[in-house]
């Protein structure tokens, strides 16, 4: 009875905390307005100073938010969908070609942002290949011979089917903390490298520690990114089975005790990315925007 009372009191105090907490969107501005056409899949680096994005025409570009210069990484249409920043400042991405046998062959690429040069880092291979960001570099996970920018690319997290892989100090661990028939997606390390958030299809966003212990379930939102060590931004997408009907950005407290809307429930904001205190996102028609928030705790 006493323990039940304690739980109730705890829940009540959490509720008070939750109601006392709020977020203020302090600014919102369009990025690259009049300079670029529709842009999707924005990806900020950890400093928040460089932004990758995919144009409607199929070019993967990088935009330097400090000097306003935009460079083309590649004009391969599929490259931009899962490109990532390595901890070394390079861009790791995958290109693909359809072979004569109509199988899809994928090739790992590394773009050196300082020189503007791309190096092919894997042979074309049939099957799943994906770029994985590490805190000190990047890697291409492939069905055959993959690539790593260094022996130790630092801490990293990525998903494969219904498994989340976490590499720390050169040691890789694999966890399946929640059931998900369709699989896991969008794994990322918190800035302090102590937690991993990922999406489990049918379950939502899961936060675990580096030993695979589940810390919180944050709700059925997609594409989580760490805003800071305590908060994540994610998208709340609705559709009618054929097309999107709304896509809202949400701010989620990593311990699962609080959440708030960053855009209206009827908005079409999607593909959030965070870095250096910035939040960048796009809309269904490709309008890139930057948002700044202030969290009052």
């Amino acid at each position, binding site marked *: 009875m006493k323990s039940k009372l304690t739980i109730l009191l705890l829940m009540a105090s959490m509720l008070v905390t939750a109601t006392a907490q709020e977020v203020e969107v302090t600014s919102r501005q369009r990025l690259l307005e009049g300079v670029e056409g529709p842009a999707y899949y924005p990806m900020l680096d950890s400093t928040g100073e460089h932004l990758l994005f995919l144009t409607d025409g199929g070019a993967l570009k990088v935009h330097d938010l400090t000097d306003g210069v935009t460079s083309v990484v590649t004009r391969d249409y599929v490259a931009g969908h899962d490109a990532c920043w390595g901890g070394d400042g390079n861009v790791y991405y995958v290109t693909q070609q359809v072979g004569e046998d*109509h199988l*899809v062959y994928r090739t790992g690429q590394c773009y050196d942002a300082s020189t503007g040069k791309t190096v092919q880092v894997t042979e074309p291979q049939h099957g799943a290949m994906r770029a994985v960001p590490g805190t000190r570099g990047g890697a291409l996970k492939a069905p055959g011979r993959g690539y790593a920018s260094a022996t130790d690319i630092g801490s990293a997290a990525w998903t494969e*089917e219904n498994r989340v892989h976490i590499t720390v100090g050169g040691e890789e661990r694999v966890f399946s903390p929640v059931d998900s028939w*369709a*699989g896991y*997606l969008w794994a990322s390390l918190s800035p302090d490298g102590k937690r991993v958030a990922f999406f489990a299809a049918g379950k939502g966003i899961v936060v675990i520690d580096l030993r695979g212990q589940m810390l919180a379930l944050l709700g059925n939102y997609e594409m989580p990114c760490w805003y800071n060590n305590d908060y994540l931004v994610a998208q709340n997408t609705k559709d009618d*089975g054929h*097309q999107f009907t709304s896509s809202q950005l949400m701010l989620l407290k990593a311990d699962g005790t609080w959440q708030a809307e960053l855009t209206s429930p009827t908005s079409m904001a999607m593909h959030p990315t965070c870095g250096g205190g910035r939040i960048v996102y796009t809309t269904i028609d490709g309008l890139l925007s930057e948002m700044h928030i202030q969290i009052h705790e």
Partner: protein
Amino acid sequence: MKKMIIQSMMTALLALAAVSTASGQQPHVYINPGHGGYDSDDRNMVIYPFAQGDSAGSWESKSNLRKGLALKEILEKKGYKTSISRVTNTTADDLALSTIVALCNQSGADVFYSIHSNATGTSAVNNFPMVFYRGYTGSPQVVNADVLAADLEPYLYANQATVWTHNYQIWGDWSFRPEWGTQGYGVLRGNRAVANLSEGSFHDYIPEAYRLLGLQYCWMEGWNISLGADKYFGRLNQFGQGAVTGNVRDDRIKRLQENPQPFIVYGDDQLMPIHGATVRLLDQEGNEVQRTMTDTLRNGIYTFKYVNPGTYTVEVSEPSHFTQTATVTVEANGSTYQNFYLKRVRDTPPVVVDYSPVWHEGDAAVKCSHPITLTFNWDMDSVTTCSAFRLEPPVGGTFKWEDSYYRLVFTPTDAFDVNTLYTLTLDRSAEHGGGTAMDEDFVMQFYTQPRNHLEELAVFPYEGAPVHFKTPTVELRVDSLLDTYNLFQRLRVLDTDGNELAWNKRSIKYNKKGDAYGYVRIPLVKNLEPGKDYRLVLDMDIADTAAIHLPAQRVINFTGVDAGADKPGMTVVEPFESADGYKAWIYVYSIDTHYLPVATSTERLFGDTSLQLTYDFNDKSSVLISYENRHDVSFSKGDTLGLHVWGDMGFHRLEVMLDKDNVSGARLPIDTIDFHGWRYLEIPLDDLEEGNYKFAGFMLHRNNQLMGNTGIIRFDNLLKKASSGIDELQVAGMQVRVAGDYIVVSADTWVQGVELIDIQGRTIKATSGNCLNVADVERGIYVVRVHINGSTSSQKIRL
């Protein structure tokens, strides 16, 4: 048997070869059964006997999953690697579109199929396969997505167990949905695989909804998608088994229409699917290879899966039908279609078990429109039954079969003659669907009533009527209450090019029970064009509630006019801008405020108001509206009086009252109100006695017909034209003078135009100003017509 064993071994070896050659290079297919769960976005078609929301009924989410699971099973048998976005049909499985795309991308799949069925979402009913890829048609965003689609569609369209209404279609989603811009379908957006969204058929085509309830039909679509994948990857020769499928239907019984509303069916879908038929696949030695049954879900589908190549017999049996067989050839990795049309077992001769009208000597006579209905114990053969049908005296008519040839309905082309004894003989040559004739003739008689056509009492527009152009109202009145079901479709107004003018159906008025006569009154949505000719067509099948129709189609010609058009030479005497000075009297002239007219802005031709008289005759025979204020203008012999009247088709007689020296002077019959809307009426006052007459009001005399006991008429601008053609009315301060080569008009107000008219009434010259150059006009007597303040004033002038 030995042959079968060898065949099976070869098939197993081929299947093994398919897997082994693909070792390490297996094509990887990501399968997305569209939607998920039994929610509002999961496309529930309500079909009998399932209620809305019943998970046992028709749901796109359910059939998509069945197709997807079948495809997964088949592709894995064929040596493919597969991934699938869901394996159950629950809300939790209904993943967001962006999640599905990300899962597909992460999986490294080569191709992606999102499996759906389609719906028009409108009253149009279609059934054909469609497939979409991301991008514009012919220009896919991901290379080869158009090739994948082109490889798939012929296999879907080859399905002969369904009924297609159109050929298949392949679209880039940006071309198909230009209103979405480049957003496109959510599962194609950002998808790196060679991706298609397949709409295999239309689930709002009800027979297809029933087919999609069946596991075997869904499996077959999965099979056909697998063939599309095989074609795309060049693997058609790598699987050693085929499939046989088809539809089992009755050869002539129509399918039941048990849905809340009758539904549209095309082609063979008109025939009844056979429930519970046993379908056997027999080898050439007669050994049963596979056996299946058609289900009870109104689709008649059977399917044999994974059949070794060879020649087989398909045997279909069902107790109420004769057994049928067909020889089929199965090819490796192919689809074989064989439909069956079973003949019913009919084991007794046909007889008439019911008929109508039932009449015996001394009974009330039968309506002349009454169809003859014969109901049989079996479905009948149309040719022999119709040729065995004889009426005396003969009457032309049409035969219609109902209830799958169980009921024959004969409807006379026109109507049966009045007061006539008819004898129907159906001679014994009539056969049922199995070819057996009746044992004896069937004979019946009936006597008809003395009325066989609908009588038209009145119609507007009538032949040659001038009809005010603004959204005119059409009305038909007949001698009994009309059957109003879809009645508006049987009246049409056409212009001279044959274009039909739309009715304002929201404002339609019909007769109702208790009315003394039948009527329909409908305004048009749009205006007529003044000066143009039109025709009103009344179809012959306009009928009363007893199905007595018009004797023939009627075509009535009329002309659009502008009743408010300028009337040259006419001066406004009374504009009806106020109801002051009017009093109402009823016969025999006792004052009655109930009839007091009012000024109304509801319907007017000029100014702000017209004068409206609302009448209710009941036991009164006429109403008089007197005007107590006298105008300065008087009428005299030879003048013309003009009046704008808004009619209600009340058929009452309207008179204008003129007083002579403030005592009753003359009652001028204006017209019978046999029209709707505004009309300009003109009366020459040639028969007046000498003297000065002034407008003193109206008199409305009740008609002696059934109609128009109550109603509304309205008046606007009462006009006068002086006998000389020159108005005596002088506008304040107006002067007309000849100054050199000009006629100059001046007045206290704005002069809007000057016309010079010769003695034949022809306008010689005109100006929109106040100075008219007459330098080139011959000397003589003319009339100058001056336009001021919306009215005209005329004056003789000598040049």
